[in-house]
């Protein structure tokens, strides 16, 4: 055959093969990624058994996708289900996942360890002794559910909805539990966000109306990170791979990090700033852009709410853009490089060079801050706000290589049932003193309860471990042990944790391959959904089995939460009298409880644009498509939604405020994407916001009160914080002027690269890599103290101390010490057997400790470290480490930022050599001091009662996970001091 005919033959065959959705060329490994199994072979994938070598023994697998549940990134996993044993043999990346693109960090494959962890909890347990005594009995799910449902029903019937609380650490599906709480009529959602990201969220929300950033790193020319992002930051895998892509294309990387983190090692400019000075650095760059005219004047004129700023701050000036530019220059002229250098310790010339690099990025400037400085400092919310100021100056907002508000790079589908709004306001989560708190001030709960502001009849902790994770853990322990304050505590968790010891029920929940959820996160300029599913359920269904409950395939009686919550809700309202049943009822079979198949089937069929069509191309139902591929890309290249011209159908009986905010009477079109964003108030005549007037047209704008990027926040100004109405610099509680000369700043906010809080502590591969948290201390300071690496030091906080090993390094700024919060796990009872669930505690990563209380004095002392032990996993006999780190958070008092409500993690500490009698891991805390410090920070607040401009408890337009009805949002006595 001649060459031409051969060529035609190959082309025809390729077209035919690819039309069937199959792969023609074997995984083009060197062109794209390591070769993934072609998707048409996922039902029967053959690999050779490495242990049988040199014999060629084939092993056959079914490949089933799911979504990782360790960090929040929600990367795609592909479970290799052994077809003989029907067990998961390993996890690799899912190449069909648009966010992670088949690549995972160590935590993804280590999910396997979590499934086979010999210490995991397999059955529902109920305590039989005192709380915390460590005595448990196995109970049935029915018993636990009926008990919980009965108590919740009674609370609702007696109008004690405020006594039901659900406190979440790692969120599962977007909005699932929030909707159920609302369906119960309970304003009981409580998150961990105020110890995590609410500082950064505040900065973003005041600017854009949307509280999360979505940087388009891959296409950026300059990337600016205020975090140790590549190593351990948020979304670090999807973002890190894109940061590296950009670097390969020549992008410059600027990193602000006091430590020489892995991220800092990749930076073109590593700025080891004095903790708390970051906003000053940002403002010096902003000032440079402004003074040198290197900002995007057209964008600023078009999209900033500068007219409102002039009207409010300079009412005597004519509202011209030129006047605004003059005032803008005046506002920031004091932020010279010299001033920022003084604050940050970075040389002025370096700052100037960095500023010029930023200026060179144009609209290809991606930035990110999530925890780090925003989570460490009082006023940390201005860190993200001043960082976004740079984007806003350059016009690098929703541009290729720029920064997108996350709601445009995320897709949340409309569920089968939308809930009602609770009719009460929960003062324990949203207290009067913190009207602008971005999220629930969760870490204050023990103090609020201690003051008698309320109690809980039913308290759920869900993949959350406040005793260990939160500051001031002994206050949590005190609260949880007190049955008058916490009537019933149910810990929903896959594995033992310090909080679960003090529960009444411990209810085992599945890991990432044992539960359902839908996820969508902002990883790049696109929108995707990822499906988490119980992979053995999907595998068995492919083999023709009918599975109606995930417990049928999970180990022991491990359940998934969605089925649990649906069942619990059904039982709370057995006769429908409470009006809860319609929210968890089947549409296909009225009178029956909704199943997860119907729930997800509905969403995939009706609420995800393009999915039914894509599934149909392969002859699949949408649910089957998601069970097969695990992810779907909803959209790519979102552009700038704020520039969208509003269709005329949405414009009816318009009204317009003096700054061009446009209101309409036309009903809003049905919401397709329910990603959270601000919801500005209607006008006084009830018209809803629809857009902003620009160049004679009505454009979509931003979900802020003004509809524009809010350089000037009328919200902050009108709620008592006029001095912070524009992005500015707030000196931190750990600013040198607020510390004694012998104090240092302790940074505790950083992660260890392969671990993720308490979530990954039962992954043996990860534990072997990272299991301790020494104190980073600079060489010179260690020498002055006379300590070397491994020597014990005492770190004294405001309310106690901990004893830890030093790690002497040049990789930390003098005057600053650092200790990762990841380590220091503990258990109280050694070798305490729990019926059906091995031991109380997790033996690979927990020290056994004694807890000692003498009045307000608390102590914790290590009795034994980790050690090798016999179990179903032979590797546990190979544990070679004993050191599992130090639980420093116990010694941290609460530091609620008076505006964002964020816990300000950085500590002013004294570091000394350990004293005689000090032992590694020792903790000492004065609980009275803890409470005094809580009160000291309360005095910084400006309450709703004193400052609400409109009699409401909190600005209604701000995002809130569960929104009560309008009447519940009013202060109890309207107008008394407002």
């Amino acid at each position, binding site marked *: 055959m001649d*060459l031409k005919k051969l060529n035609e033959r*190959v082309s025809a065959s390729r077209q035919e093969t690819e039309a069937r959705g199959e*792969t*023609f060329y*074997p995984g*083009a*490994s*060197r*062109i*794209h990624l390591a070769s993934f199994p072609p998707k048409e072979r996922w039902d029967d994938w053959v690999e050779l058994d490495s242990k049988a070598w040199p014999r060629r023994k084939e092993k056959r697998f079914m490949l089933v996708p799911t979504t990782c549940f360790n960090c929040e990134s929600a990367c795609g996993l592909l479970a290799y289900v052994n077809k003989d044993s029907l067990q998961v043999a390993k996890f690799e990346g899912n190449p069909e996942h648009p966010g992670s693109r088949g690549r995972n960090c160590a935590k993804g494959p280590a999910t396997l360890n979590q499934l086979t962890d010999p210490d995991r909890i397999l059955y529902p347990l109920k305590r039989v002794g005192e709380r915390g005594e460590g005595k448990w009995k196995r109970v049935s799910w029915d018993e636990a559910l009926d008990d919980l449902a009965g108590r919740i029903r009674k609370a609702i019937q007696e109008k004690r909805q405020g006594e039901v609380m659900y406190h979440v650490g790692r969120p599962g599906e977007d909005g699932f539990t929030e909707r159920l709480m609302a369906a119960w009529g309970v304003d009981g959602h409580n998150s961990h966000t105020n110890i995590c990201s609410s500082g950064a969220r505040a900065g973003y929300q005041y600017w854009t109306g949307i509280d999360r950033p979505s940087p388009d790193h891959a296409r950026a020319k300059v990337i600016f990170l205020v975090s140790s992002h590549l190593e351990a930051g948020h979304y670090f895998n999807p973002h890190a791979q894109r940061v590296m892509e950009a670097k390969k294309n020549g992008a410059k990387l600027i990193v602000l990090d006091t430590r020489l983190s892995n991220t800092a090692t990749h930076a073109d400019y590593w700025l080891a700033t004095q903790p708390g000075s970051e906003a000053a650095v940002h403002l010096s760059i902003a000032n440079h852009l402004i003074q040198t005219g290197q900002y995007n004047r057209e964008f600023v004129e078009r999209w900033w709410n500068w007219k409102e700023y002039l009207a409010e701050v300079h009412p005597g000036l004519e509202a011209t853009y030129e006047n605004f530019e003059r005032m803008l220059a005046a506002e920031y002229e004091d932020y010279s490089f010299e001033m920022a250098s003084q604050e940050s310790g970075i040389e002025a010339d370096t700052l100037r060079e960095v500023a010029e690099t930023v200026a060179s990025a144009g609209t290809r400037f991606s930035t990110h801050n999530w925890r780090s400085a925003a989570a460490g400092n009082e006023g940390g919310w201005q860190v993200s706000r001043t960082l976004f100021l740079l984007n806003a100056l350059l016009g690098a907002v929703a541009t290729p290589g720029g920064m997108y508000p996350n709601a445009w790079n995320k897709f949340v589908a409309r569920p089968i049932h939308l809930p009602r709004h609770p009719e009460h306001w929960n003062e324990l989560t949203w207290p009067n003193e913190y009207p602008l708190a971005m999220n629930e001030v969760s870490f204050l709960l023990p103090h609020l309860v201690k003051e008698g502001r309320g109690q809980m009849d039913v308290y759920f902790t869900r993949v959350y471990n406040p005793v260990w994770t939160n500051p001031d853990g002994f206050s949590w322990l005190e609260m949880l042990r007190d049955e008058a304050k916490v009537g019933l505590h149910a810990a929903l968790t896959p594995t033992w944790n310090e909080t679960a010891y003090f529960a009444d029920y411990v209810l085992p929940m599945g890991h990432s391959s044992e539960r359902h959820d839908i996820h969508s996160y902002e990883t790049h300029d696109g929108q995707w959904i990822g499906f988490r599913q119980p992979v053995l359920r999907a595998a068995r269904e492919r083999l023709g089995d009918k599975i109606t409950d995930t417990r049928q395939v999970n180990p022991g009686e491990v359940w998934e939460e969605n089925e649990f919550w649906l069942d619990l809700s059904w039982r709370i309202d057995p006769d429908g009298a409470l009006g809860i049943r319609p929210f968890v009822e089947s549409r296909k079979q009225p009178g029956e409880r909704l199943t997860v198949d119907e729930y997800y089937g509905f969403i995939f069929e009706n609420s995800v644009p393009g999915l039914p069509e894509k599934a149909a191309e392969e002859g699949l139902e949408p649910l089957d498509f998601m069970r097969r591929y695990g992810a779907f890309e909803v959209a790519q290249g979102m552009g700038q939604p704020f520039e969208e011209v509003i269709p005329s159908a949405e414009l009816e009986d318009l009204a317009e405020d003096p700054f061009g905010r446009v209101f309409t009477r036309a009903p809003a079109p049905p919401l397709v994407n329910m990603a959270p964003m601000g919801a500005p108030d209607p006008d006084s005549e009830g018209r809803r916001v629809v857009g902003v007037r620009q160049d004679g047209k009505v454009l979509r704008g931003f979900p802020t009160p003004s509809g524009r990027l809010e350089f000037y926040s009328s919200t902050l100004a009108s709620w008592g914080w006029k001095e912070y109405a524009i992005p500015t610099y707030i000196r931190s509680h750990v600013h040198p002027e607020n510390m004694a000369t012998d104090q240092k700043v302790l940074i505790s906010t950083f992660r260890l690269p392969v671990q993720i809080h308490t979530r990954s502590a039962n992954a043996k591969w990860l534990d072997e890599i990272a299991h301790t948290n020494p104190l980073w201390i600079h060489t010179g300071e260690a020498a002055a103290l006379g300590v070397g690496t491994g020597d014990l030091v005492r770190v004294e906080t405001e309310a106690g101390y901990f004893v830890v090993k030093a790690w002497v390094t040049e990789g930390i700024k003098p005057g600053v010490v650092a200790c990762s919060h990841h380590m220091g796990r503990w258990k109280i009872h050694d070798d305490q057997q729990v019926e059906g669930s091995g031991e109380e505690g997790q033996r690979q990563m927990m020290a056994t400790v004694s807890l000692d209380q003498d009045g307000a004095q608390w102590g914790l002392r290590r009795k034994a470290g980790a050690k090798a032990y016999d179990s179903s996993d032979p590797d546990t006999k190979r544990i070679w480490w004993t050191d599992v780190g130090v639980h420093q958070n116990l010694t941290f008092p609460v530091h609620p930022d008076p505006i964002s409500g964020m816990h300000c993690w950085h500590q002013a500490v004294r570091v000394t050599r350990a004293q005689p009698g000090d032992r590694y891991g020792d903790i000492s805390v004065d609980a009275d001091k803890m409470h005094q410090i809580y009160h000291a920070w309360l005095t910084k607040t400006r309450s709703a009662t004193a400052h609400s401009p409109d009699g409401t408890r909190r600005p209604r337009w701000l995002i809130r996970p569960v929104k009560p009805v309008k009447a519940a949002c009013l202060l109890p006595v309207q107008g008394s001091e407002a």
Partner: protein
Amino acid sequence: MELIRALGALAEPPGPETARLAELLDLGTPPDEAAFSEIFLFQLYPYASVYLGPEGMLGGEARDRIAGFWRALDLEPPPEPDHLAVMLSLYGRLAELEAQAEGETAQKGWRRARKAFLWEHLLSWLPFYLTRFQDLAPADSELAFYGRWAQLLQDALRAEAADLGPQATLPLHLREAPALEDPRKASGENFLGALLSPVRTGIILVRSDLQQAGRELGLGGRIGERAFVLKALMGQDSSALLRWLASWARQVSKSNSEKHSLDGDIASFWARRAENTASLLTELSQEASDS
């Protein structure tokens, strides 16, 4: 050019798709993993940088130049841009882009890119590389599949060259390639290593060549990578080995000269390099014999 891309895919380890491709291309019984390993892992490494780089090793400047070609097209270079399968796949892709381009200018642009890639990065080494399959994968051996594959690829590339027309200048890889230095003049140069760099010597010296030399000269063979084997043989009888290598280089030069009319300046370059190598080795052999 789907044919070329498909031939590239056959330079990947055999999988279930190999049989289908083999059948489509009339290449007969598909190879097993052992045949693949023997030819591509032990003898003829399928990486351009091995043949075009002055070090005769993976990576280096040769690979960077090929990666640069991707960048020039505003494409992200893959981790191994010089792997034969990747290169042929890119060539196929360029043909596709040319076919899909709207307007004559765009079409011409892609055609220019394809032609440049063909001459600069494929024809600069592949004709000589593929020739080695004739003796290393003969028709009666277990490697016969790869002999047929190489011939078909050789034919397909020639057809492409004829279709796109000649290129005026010698490829940059060859223009910039340093010659094999005379060890008597060079200081500290790794002469044995340089002997394994085809672009310097004009000859592709594979493991089985060295084994053959050992057998024919009655020298003890050692197991190891080529530089190690070469050193071991040289240590036993350098004069004989150099003579053997010179003769081998001369044969290669002759063979490449015969192709001169077909492959133009490129074949001439390779022939000249082999001839120079033959001359130098002959001299060195005589010196070694005299000393």
